[in-house]
């Protein structure tokens, strides 16, 4: 996890450029975004709201398909450019090779479908050869792995019967059921309280260790990024202003904005408990 070892690069993003055309003037949301993700690596993207970090992540996950949006650059994964390949090809990766979890566990799950059904959906789509019984077994085992007690019972429950932290665990289980190569976590802990945050971060770490899944961890919370990531990209107004290993960024921040971000981390020896940037 310390970045100095040579890993095989599984995802490379070059010159990603995202522009909105929903106003008279085209507005650039992301510019010259570059990212290389190695196998088993956790890369963080930090920045404030509107810095383009979530947009970049959605682009990688193939979830930006608005008509008023212009995208250019290359997102190379398994020899395919995810920006230009057809939808059918893109779908074979989504949920199977590249999974995503979101900021809002309260609304990201389907409100009136059972947890089990949602957890095993990727399997149902990508591996129809797996029969119902086997699917159920795998879903229950995955629900157990993400730390849900009595996974057989949870399997037959509905999202409204679970807490926010439990729902995010369900989201992670559903994302991991196909053993993807890449997990994109877009502010996965922002909507959760602090103790649950720590549990989710630990869970992501252990998934990374046990499954070897590469993780792109997006957050506005530098202290979280420091706990989990080996490398960090700092974004401001759609541009990556600084990138490097976590240690370098935290000990020798070059960019003024990065310094400000670091300075805004609440310190235990001070009385402030505010977590927002």
């Amino acid at each position, binding site marked *: 996890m310390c970045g100095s070892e040579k890993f095989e690069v599984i995802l490379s993003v070059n010159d990603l450029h995202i522009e909105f055309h929903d106003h008279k003037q085209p507005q650039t949301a992301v510019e010259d975004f570059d990212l290389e993700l190695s196998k088993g690596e956790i890369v963080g993207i930090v920045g404030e709201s509107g810095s383009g970090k979530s947009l970049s992540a959605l682009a990688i996950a193939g*979830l930006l398909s608005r008509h008023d949006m212009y995208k250019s650059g290359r997102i190379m994964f398994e020899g395919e450019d995810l920006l230009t390949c057809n939808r059918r090809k893109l779908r074979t990766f989504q*949920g199977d090779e590249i*999974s995503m979890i979101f900021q809002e566990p309260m609304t990201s799950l389907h*409100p*009136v*479908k059972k947890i089990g059904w949602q957890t095993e959906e990727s399997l149902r*789509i990508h591996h129809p050869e797996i029969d119902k019984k086997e699917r159920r077994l795998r879903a229950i085992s995955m629900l157990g792995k993400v730390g849900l007690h009595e996974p057989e019972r949870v399997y037959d429950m509905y999202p*409204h019967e679970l807490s926010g932290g439990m729902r995010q665990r369900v989201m992670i289980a559903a994302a991991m059921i196909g053993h993807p190569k890449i997990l994109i976590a877009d502010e996965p802990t922002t909507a959760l309280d602090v103790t649950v945050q720590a549990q989710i971060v630990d869970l992501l770490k252990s998934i990374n260790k046990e499954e070897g899944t590469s993780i792109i961890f997006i957050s506005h919370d530098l202290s979280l990024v420091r706990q989990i990531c080996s490398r960090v990209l700092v974004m401001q107004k759609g541009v990556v202003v600084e990138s490097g290993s976590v240690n370098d960024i935290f000990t020798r921040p070059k960019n003024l904005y990065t310094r400000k971000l670091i300075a805004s981390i609440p310190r235990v020896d001070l009385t402030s408990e505010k977590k927002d940037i």
Partner: protein
Amino acid sequence: MKYILKKASMMVLTLIAVSILVFLAFNLIPGDPATRILGTEATESQLQLLRQEMGLNDPIYVRYLRWIWNFIRGDLGESYSYGSVSALILDKIPITIWLAIMAFFLMFVISIPLGIFTARHEGGVIDKIVVVLDQVIMAIPPFFSGIIITLVFGLTLQLFVPGGFVSYKIDFWGFIGYLVFPAIAIALPKITMCVKLLRGSVIEEISKDYTRTAYSRGNTTRGVLYRHVLKNAMIPVITFMGMALADMVSGSIVIEQVFNIPGIGRMLLSSINNRDYPVVEAIIMGIAILVMVVNLIVDIIYRLVDPRIEAIND
């Protein structure tokens, strides 16, 4: 189960309230059945005799209790002019029920595909045309569209004989044929409302977070729509359809006049004119029961579709 019992007892209470209101209403409006039957030439003693015989001189609560007791036993009483009310209603009710079923069927098979299609192609040419047409047709009351349909399809295109009718006992398919156009007239405004509702509902659900999750798992747009969005989008539509079904039964009262169909609606109107209270009361109670049963069914469907409702009510 507990819920259904609770609902059922509420239904009984509502029915009692409706029955009292109906009974009181017909005792308050002017007009005397005895005069109606014997005519204005009858002498006062003849009228008195008939009133006595019909039990009209008893106190109002005695008459009410007698009526409701007979009603519960299934005896709907005697019509003042046609004989047994039960026989009368049983003879007419298939006509009205078939009319409502056909209108409901039309609404279902037209508005659901159209609502989904327009939502999927929001802002497209067909969507824009449908939205405008929808708004226009929604504003046309069924009796008026009934007249236009009679004019265009009956008189001009001669697809059916205006004012013609065959009893379901004689020629069932001919009977159904005569009901097609009245059913269209009843269904049209409901179709337009349902399309509008479903379109809006689907568009709203598509923008929700769980839709993005569904895409992230590799669903096709069709998969997202039919396996995720539709179940949620249908919840308000189910409510609407339940209300629309009850509305269609009462809407047929007017349409039966326009198309000259001898159903329950026609009978209701002529019975009101003739002060034929037993018939009117039985029909109104029947409509009230129907509305409540439909509501109960909608509630049960609701609980099957949305598990969250149980959590709120229990």
